[in-house]
C-alpha cells in the first residue's frame, strides 16, 4: 500500500523535500514509515520524533491504511 510522509521545517531541510511517497506492506505502522524515511536520511532525523497520522498525533504503533498521510513533526515553536 502507498502512504505519503510529510516533512516540515528542519526535517524538510534535512531530507531536501517536504513530501515522500512510500510503498509499505500491509499492517505497517507509523513507526515503520518513520524508519524508512530515517534510512533515506542516513539517520539524520531523531529516532523518536512526534508523529501524526491524517492530522492527528499518533503513536509509532499506529497501524496505517492505504492513502494515509503520515507527518513527522519537529519540535513545535508556535506563539
Amino acid at each position, binding site marked *: 500500500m502507498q502512504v505519503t510522509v510529510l516533512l*516540515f521545517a528542519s526535517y524538510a531541510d534535512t531530507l531536501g523535500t517536504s513530501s515522500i511517497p512510500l510503498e509499505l506492506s500491509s499492517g505497517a505502522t507509523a513507526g515503520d514509515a518513520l524508519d524508512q524515511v530515517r534510512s533515506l536520511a542516513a539517520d539524520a532525523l531523531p529516532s523518536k520524533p512526534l508523529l501524526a497520522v491524517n492530522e492527528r498525533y499518533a503513536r509509532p504503533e499506529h497501524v496505517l491504511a492505504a492513502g494515509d498521510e503520515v*507527518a513527522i513533526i519537529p519540535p513545535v*515553536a*508556535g506563539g
Partner: protein
Amino acid sequence: MRTALVDRPIDVTALANEVASASNGASVLFIGTVRNVNDGRAVTGMEYTAYRGMAERELAAIAREASEEFGGSDVVVEHRLGALELGDASVVIATAHPHRGAAYAASRYVIEQLKRRVPIWKREHYVDGTREWVDPTRQANHAEQAEVSK
C-alpha cells in the same frame, strides 16, 4: 469562538471587539510579538510555517477546551504565518467572560497548549545573515546549562 491561521497582519482591535459583549465584564488579550533577541542572539526577522490542516484543527480544539474548562469563555485566536518583522504580532489570543479569573485562565491555557501542541515552526533570521529553525526543547537545555554555569 474562532481560530485561524492568517497570512496578513493581525488586527488586535478587531479581535478585542469580537469577544467583547455587554455580558462579558472582562476581556484579556495576549499578544505575542517577534523579539529582537532570542536565546542570546540578535534577531532581525522571523519566518513562520505550519502543517496547516493539523495546526488549524489543534488550534480549534484548544480554544474549545479553554472555553469548556473555564466557564464558557469566549475565545478567539489568530496565529500569523509567513515572514514577520521585529515587533510584528505572531499570535493574538482574545478571551472574555463575565468574570476576570476565567478570562485570564482561558488565555493562559490557550498560549501554553498552543506552544506545546500546534504544529507551527519558526525560523529566525540573525544579524549575521544566518537563519535557524527554533527548537524550544534545545533552548531549554541551553537555559539550564546557563543556570548551572552561573
